[in-house]
């Protein structure tokens, strides 16, 4: 099964009906290969709209896929939510909060939010995608959060440059790595605190940002209030939420979340065969291109001869979208899609393509993004044991009748 569309079994109307009648709440089937993809669609999570419940504590909430059809930017209350440890900051006193900048610096800082806010302000659109987005679609299946394709979203982020903060503290000669810590904490004392790090040059590239606005609104606690890191073009594991510590190191970061977790094979596309051994691993890093049809779901029916325009989203990963191509015959022929407005190279790009079905039966609609580095989505889905970085060409099968 190559399909990755989901069937919405309930929908908002059914959900409302279920609520009134006291019947079972709505469910979503993520259509995971081999089954087991049915999840509750919940509407009572604090500060969220309807979300797919993957795990209650700590929350793993997935964006229902139809949200991506609604626009280039993902509304904050529909944006996916993901935490590692269950001791999540549920209360923040903004006057007591400090962002510590320490380690291999000339002048350690303890910044108030007011001081941070007074630094030059920058804005950027960027896709935030979980390293394990689409893990549930891996074949063979692998353990981990069993996401469909909704552990991603696109937002406008406003904040300050990480570089400006580092320069205020003055990075000392010999520094190589910057490590980020946050308000969340392990449930058991000896558990590995969630921390991530970036090479110093990356941290100082002027694009990595400490954000306090998301789509024009203050960050909510679900998304990392008061401040979170934005690492454009890189997977979300680096976008540390509720950031409260920046530590400059003069050697590699040996902490669990860099050294052991979130590692991918050092092979092209992080692709290996199940059971393959003898390859090295590296920390997951920049994203790769992806694209999706958003206005049709798998199994939909379309009438013969009637125009059925296709539309969707694409993103280039670490650079912008050069082209989106669409096939309506299972990959035998491809036509270029028309790209929507460019809202920034790290964001979603909308696309459209004409389609008028001319033959009865199944039509396999495929979409392929090529980014500005010339990197295109692979025809065969990539596989690795961690369930990371999936980006094969997606197929949506529809019935023409």
């Amino acid at each position, binding site marked *: 099964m190559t399909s990755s569309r989901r069937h919405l079994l309930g929908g908002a109307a059914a959900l409302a009906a279920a609520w009134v009648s006291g019947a079972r709440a709505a469910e979503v089937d993520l259509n*995971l290969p*081999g*089954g*087991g993809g*049915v*999840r509750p669609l919940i509407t009572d*999570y*604090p*500060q969220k709209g309807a979300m797919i*419940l*993957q*795990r*209650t*504590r*700590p*929350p*793993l909430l997935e964006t229902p896929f139809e949200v991506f059809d609604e626009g280039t930017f993902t509304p904050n209350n529909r944006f996916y939510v993901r935490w590692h*440890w*269950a001791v*999540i900051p*549920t*209360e*923040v*006193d*903004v006057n007591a*909060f400090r962002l510590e900048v320490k380690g291999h610096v000339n002048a350690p800082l303890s910044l108030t*939010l*007011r001081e941070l*806010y007074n630094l030059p302000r920058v804005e950027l659109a960027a896709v935030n995608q979980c390293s394990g987005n689409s893990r*549930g679609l891996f074949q063979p*299946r*692998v*353990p981990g*959060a*069993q996401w469909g394709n909704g552990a991603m979203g696109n937002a406008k982020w406003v904040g300050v440059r990480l570089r400006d903060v580092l320069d205020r503290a003055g990075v000392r000669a010999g520094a190589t790595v910057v490590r980020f810590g946050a308000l969340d904490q*392990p*449930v*058991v004392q*000896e*558990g*590995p605190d969630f921390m991530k790090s970036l090479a110093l040059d990356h941290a100082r590239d002027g694009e990595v940002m400490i954000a*306090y*606005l998301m789509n024009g609104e*203050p*960050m*909510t*606690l*679900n998304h990392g*209030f*008061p401040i979170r890191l934005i690492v454009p073009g890189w997977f979300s594991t680096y976008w540390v939420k509720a950031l409260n510590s920046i530590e400059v190191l003069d050697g590699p970061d040996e902490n*669990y979340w860099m050294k*052991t*977790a979130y590692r991918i094979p050092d092979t092209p596309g992080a692709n290996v065969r199940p059971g393959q051994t003898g390859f090295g691993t590296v920390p997951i890093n920049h994203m790769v291109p992806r694209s999706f049809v958003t206005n049709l779901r798998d199994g939909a029916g379309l009438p013969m001869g009637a125009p059925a325009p296709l539309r969707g989203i694409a993103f280039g990963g670490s650079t912008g979208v050069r082209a989106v191509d669409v096939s309506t015959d299972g990959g035998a022929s491809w036509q270029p899609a028309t790209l929507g407005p460019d809202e920034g190279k790290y964001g979603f790009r909308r696309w459209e393509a004409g389609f008028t079905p001319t033959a009865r039966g199944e039509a396999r609609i495929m979409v392929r993004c090529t980014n500005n580095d010339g990197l295109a989505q692979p025809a065969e889905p990539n596989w690795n044991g961690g369930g990371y970085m999936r980006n094969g060409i997606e197929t949506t099968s529809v019935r023409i009748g």
Partner: protein
Amino acid sequence: MSFQNFCYGIVAVAGISLALFGKSPPAPPAPYPPTPEALRFAAAEAAYPFHNASIELPAGDRQFQGPGAEVANANCLSCHSAGMVLNQPPLSRAVWEEEVRKMRTAYHAPVAEADVEPIAKYLASLPRP
């Protein structure tokens, strides 16, 4: 809001922020009309994104069910709710044992050695869709 209230608002905001910064006490009301700086300052204050926040998150009360569930309920619900475990794809008993050992070594889950195999056995026995 009347113009007068609006101007008092600006003065009040200026006063509060002076107090926050621990400088001199609030100045007497400014003469009308407010200066452009005062207006800019008030606008910036209105956009200030940091205000005390709190949220109450659900804990999740789902339990493991069926024969052998006690050992999973006793060991596997403290760090994450049951959904983390029950939403996994079908895994062999050996892979479940690896998972439980990973919880011990990587995350310091206080699982007794004697409980590792019974947990793996229970999880591998669960009916899968």
